[in-house]
């Protein structure tokens, strides 16, 4: 007889001898019955949700960038000798082919990295291809109007791609081309109206872009697009705080409202660094606070206090800001 079967026969005999039922064996509170180990449910973690850029992916992206540089140099060096169909095939054709290869590779999870590299090639070379097409149509590719049309085509294309394939790389390019569309379309409108100060308008535009990036980053923070949040926070706070500082102006043409509002913006960004646990917010908030201290000291305190004393005070304030920044990072943001 099989040893296992023998053991089971003996267990049945002992149970029958002592009146032990199946229920007694199942009840964890019965003395002597071992407590079952707690069941641990491990959520299935897909590669795309916890995605870290490894050395292999860095090499994929470098390879993709080198391909783009090669195509660009080829077209540039042979611009006058190549016919239009050849130029179009080398740029727009290559971009479309790279996109299709990316889609084919993307259907296999093991080829996710090379797939993203081909999408990168497509996204960089596609604008060059569209420039070639519009240039052949004798349009001024440097003008805001033509760039607005090109960026609109690319924005629609990559937004549709994200809607269909749901890959973060498409959202990244959708944001990049959306920003290009925003800048070029507002520049085109600005050219129609000489009553608007171009410099002031550029500052407000950067302010709006920065605010939009920060809000997009916050909406992406808890989801599949979370890897994009860091970059959005960084560029967003750089654009927003940089523009707000520029709008404050410089004595004697300073704008008091913006100069008084600026500390509110900076401390708002520093608060967001704690709330969103973002190092990007903390870094740029600290840098711009230091710049603001230096600016205000140089504008208003050099004559009364004297320049050397103003520098001493500004330096001490910067030490304080730096120490506070490190403390915030250690206490609220750093997880390891």
């Amino acid at each position: 007889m099989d040893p296992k079967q023998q053991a089971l026969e003996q267990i049945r005999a002992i149970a029958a001898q002592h009146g032990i039922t199946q229920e007694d064996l199942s009840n964890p509170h019965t003395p002597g019955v071992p407590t079952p180990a707690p069941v641990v449910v491990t959520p299935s973690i897909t590669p795309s949700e916890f995605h870290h850029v490894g050395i292999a992916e860095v090499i994929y992206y470098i390879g993709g960038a080198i391909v783009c540089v090669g195509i660009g140099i080829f077209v540039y060096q042979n611009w006058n000798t190549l016919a239009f169909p050849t130029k179009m095939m080398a740029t727009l054709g290559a971009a479309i082919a790279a996109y299709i290869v990316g889609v084919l590779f993307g259907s296999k999870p093991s080829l996710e990295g090379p797939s993203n590299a081909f999408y990168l090639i497509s996204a960089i070379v596609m604008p060059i291809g569209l420039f070639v097409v519009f240039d052949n149509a004798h349009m001024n590719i440097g003008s805001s109007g033509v760039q607005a049309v090109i960026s609109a085509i690319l924005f629609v294309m990559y937004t549709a791609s994200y809607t269909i394939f749901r890959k973060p790389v498409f959202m990244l390019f959708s944001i990049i081309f959306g920003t290009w569309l925003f800048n070029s379309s507002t520049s085109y409108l600005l050219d129609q109206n000489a009553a608007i100060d171009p410099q002031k308008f550029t500052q407000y535009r950067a302010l709006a872009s920065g605010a939009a990036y920060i809000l997009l980053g916050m909406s992406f923070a808890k989801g599949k697009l979370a890897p994009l949040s860091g970059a959005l926070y960084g560029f967003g706070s750089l654009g927003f705080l940089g523009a707000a500082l520029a709008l404050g102006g410089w004595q004697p043409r300073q704008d008091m409202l913006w100069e008084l509002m600026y500390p509110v913006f900076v401390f708002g960004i520093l608060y967001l660094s704690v709330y969103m646990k973002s190092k990007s917010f903390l870094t740029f908030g600290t840098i711009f606070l230091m710049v603001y201290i230096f600016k205000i000291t140089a504008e208003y305190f050099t004559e009364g206090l004297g320049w050397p004393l103003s520098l001493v005070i500004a330096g001490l304030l910067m030490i304080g800001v730096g120490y506070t920044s490190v403390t915030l990072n250690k206490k609220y943001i750093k997880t390891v």
Partner: protein
Amino acid sequence: MSFIKRNITLLLGLLIPVGMVVLVAASVYLPGFFIKPHTNFLYSIGDNTYNCQKFSVSRGKVLIADTSGEKCDAANTPRLYTYDVSEKKSTEVAPETAAALTVNDMPESPDGFSITTGSSGGGFLFFYGSSRDYNSQYLVGHGYSDKLSLPQSGNYYNQFRFLGWITQ
């Protein structure tokens, strides 16, 4: 409503750039429907050479100088034009006709408009800027802006020169 609450930051992030484009478009095109300039003006083309300006305005009248000297370019023929702000077109006038007009040479017209150079935007991706485009002239005032259709454009230094607002 719950969709808006759940995605409020995303919606705001998209609303800011869209709203700005709409606002800018409205500020560019809407004033043209409600604000109209009324004062025509006089200008010259090809009369911007230093020390050789043929036309000038003094005490409300156009003066015609003798520019046949050695310093001046004999091949250069300055011309006078009146600009009709309602028709948006220029008409060449003879110096004698212009001399009979009463002209106000202040930079701003009696109805609050002025002539300024245009701007030309350019850039790529994130880096966009605007600079003054001295080859185009605009009539601006009270939020209104309209590009002048001039007979010639190109070299700033030898072309458009505003003389004054025609009051009679």
